[in-house]
């Protein structure tokens, strides 16, 4: 805790002792509670815990170092967060319909989640057809991307691609933009699934490439974007995957910052300038329902990243110190029992994220625990954000919990815990070494187990699951139907027709060029883009890179 420097300290100590006695007399519980990150939470915080004397150093003003209160001077008062709902289902036409519906209902940016076959580096004709389009859109070719984005003003809207290594979806997006006459410099958005470490340790949504290959592809991707795509964020460092896999909020923040340090150090080793690449680093986090812990996690992470970027990475441009993040409400907290309760959970999670100072928000649909969301549930999720912003007025004051004795003391304590974990990863030799040793996976696994034990024993209440149970009421929730088989069949036929129609020699040449780039020092993303422009499919690009850079496996530890 901070040193008590408040002038009223003695008086406060007396008062607090008096209160503590009354509190103990009035409660039967011992009062020892800890949050998910293991921080003990007291029943009351006073100026003895956080006095405010260190305001300038610890908090400062919004838009000023160390950014504890927010990365922009005007924060949500000036510009509300981006409402970015994840969308991805069926075939490109299905996706396009859902996208236009969401844009009409207030979404201000788009996202694209590809089918799991795309994550794994395969074309539609290489996998079990049952799985096509069931939890993401099947996009394998430039023409698929054209249909997916038909009528969407790419020059005016930011586009988050859940585009894992080797970033063929971005290549397709750029190819579509070129066909429409939109310069690449006008394209804005983020490569959302670029954090390869999080894939190897947490969700294993990568294309079976070996880790060193993924590492090279990522640095090439960042270097290309820095040079050619001024509006593009080539990397989003992801805490969400690890927290969903079981990491505590403190662990998720620490491992994310350790990954970001590793990527930044790789870029510096490549000769890139931190003042150029760091302003394009973004982050992506989970928001659990552990309300104050999440607020403190974000505030602590923001302050810590500013220090790391400035002091450890040597960035001098203040834009390089800003901790820009997207956040998603946690699906793990949602319950299948009494599913409409999830709307309340998502609301609480979203408020924590907003108070934490996020730049972009995805609110989960209440039915995500039952199936891929229905249209109605997706609209309620968007409406939740509109209500919080415009009815509840959560945007009127910047960092409204700043100065709360509790929130400031908790922010300090979360920061200390995050720093200890970063030091552990450093001691292991950095994030790549730490995941190769299984260190990170073990900690995440133990935390997942600890949380499950808490639910199992009833220490952690989950309404409808281990408390307040009622007869199952999920019958009135209609799960989404899977994509129409006829559309999947047509998609497969279109892929076959595309492969037959294209200029075969140009495709073969471009894939050869990609293979050569893998063994040389040419930029791999430039080669991926050329291959996609020549008509190579996603599966062909991935197969080439796997062959040349080596097969990989999930780095799991049980």
């Amino acid at each position, binding site marked *: 805790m901070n040193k008590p420097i408040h002038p009223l300290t003695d008086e406060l100590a007396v008062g607090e002792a008096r209160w503590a006695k009354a509190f103990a007399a009035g409660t039967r519980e011992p009062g020892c509670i800890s949050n998910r990150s293991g921080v003990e939470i007291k029943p009351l915080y006073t100026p003895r815990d956080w006095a405010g004397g260190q305001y300038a150093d610890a908090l400062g003003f919004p838009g000023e170092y160390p950014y504890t209160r927010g990365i922009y001077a005007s924060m949500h008062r000036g510009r509300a967060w981006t409402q970015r709902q994840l969308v991805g289902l069926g075939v490109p036409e299905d996706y396009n319909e859902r996208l236009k519906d969401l844009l009409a209902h207030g979404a201000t940016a788009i996202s694209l989640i590809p089918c799991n076959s795309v994550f794994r580096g395969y074309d539609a004709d290489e996998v079990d057809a049952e799985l096509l389009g*069931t939890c993401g859109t099947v996009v394998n070719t430039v023409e698929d991307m054209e249909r997916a984005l038909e009528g969407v003003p790419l020059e005016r809207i930011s586009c988050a691609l859940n585009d894992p290594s080797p970033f063929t979806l971005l290549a397709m997006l750029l190819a579509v933009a070129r066909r429409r006459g939109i310069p690449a410099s006008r394209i804005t958005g983020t490569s959302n699934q670029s954090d390869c470490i999080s894939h190897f340790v947490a969700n294993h949504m990568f294309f079976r490439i070996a880790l060193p290959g993924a590492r090279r592809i990522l640095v090439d991707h960042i270097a290309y974007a820095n040079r050619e795509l001024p509006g593009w964020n080539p990397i989003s460092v992801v805490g969400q995957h690890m927290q*969903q*896999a079981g990491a505590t909020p403190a662990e998720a923040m620490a491992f994310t910052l350790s990954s970001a340090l590793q990527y930044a150090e790789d870029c510096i080793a490549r000769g890139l300038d931190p003042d150029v690449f760091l302003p394009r680093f973004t982050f992506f986090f989970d928001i659990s329902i552990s309300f104050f812990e999440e607020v403190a996690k974000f505030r602590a992470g923001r302050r810590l990243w500013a220090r790391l970027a400035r002091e450890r990475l040597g960035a001098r441009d203040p834009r390089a110190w800003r901790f820009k993040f997207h956040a998603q409400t946690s699906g*793990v907290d949602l319950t299948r029992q009494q599913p409409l309760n999830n709307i309340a959970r998502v609301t609480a999670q979203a408020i924590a994220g907003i108070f934490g100072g996020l730049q972009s928000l995805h609110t989960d649909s209440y039915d995500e625990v039952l199936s891929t969301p229905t249209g109605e549930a997706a609209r309620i999720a968007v409406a939740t954000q509109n209500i919080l912003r415009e009815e509840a007025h959560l945007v009127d004051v910047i960092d409204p919990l700043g100065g709360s004795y509790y929130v400031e003391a908790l922010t300090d304590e979360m920061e200390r815990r995050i720093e200890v974990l970063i030091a552990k990863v450093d001691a292991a030799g950095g994030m790549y070494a730490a995941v190769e040793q299984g260190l990170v996976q073990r900690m995440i696994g133990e935390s*997942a187990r600890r949380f*499950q034990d808490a639910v199992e024993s009833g220490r952690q209440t989950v309404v409808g699951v281990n408390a307040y149970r009622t007869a199952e009421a999920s019958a009135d929730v209609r799960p989404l139907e899977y994509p129409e088989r006829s559309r999947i069949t047509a998609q497969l036929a279109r892929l076959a027709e595309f492969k037959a129609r294209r200029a075969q020699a140009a495709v073969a040449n471009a894939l050869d060029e990609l293979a050569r780039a893998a063994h040389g020092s040419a930029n791999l993303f430039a080669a991926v883009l050329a291959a996609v422009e020549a008509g190579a499919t996603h599966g062909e690009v991935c197969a080439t890179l796997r062959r040349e850079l080596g097969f990989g496996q*999930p780095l799991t530890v049980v």
Partner: protein
Amino acid sequence: MLERPPKVIITKIGLDGHDRGSRVIAAYLRDCGMEVVYTPPWQPLAAVVKLAIEEDADVIGISSLATDHLLVPKLIDALRAAGAEEVQVVVGGIVPPTDEARLLESGVALVFHPGASLQEIADGVRALAGRVRAVQEGAST
């Protein structure tokens, strides 16, 4: 009581890689005294069948978050084709109600949904393993 502890394969088939559920379940069943064979995600169906036969498993637990459960009927067909139809298959994860009916019809013994307790899952698996052993003993006497 079984003479040997129940032997359970905990795995993920199909394309998804989210393995929190499978890791937590594997660790818990092991702590309950079962013999657990854990695999990383992305297992081909043929690999799971081969493993079940080689390991002489009683139960296969399939963890599914993102619709990979749709492949389970194919897995059961493959087990039958390989003569391993006595191995019981359970599925845990996000399984919509209509799919649950289809899975049970295809021969899945149990489906566990989010919110199922670890104890409930362990009890279910243990009971199934007991039935597998009883059938095996019945066949050998």
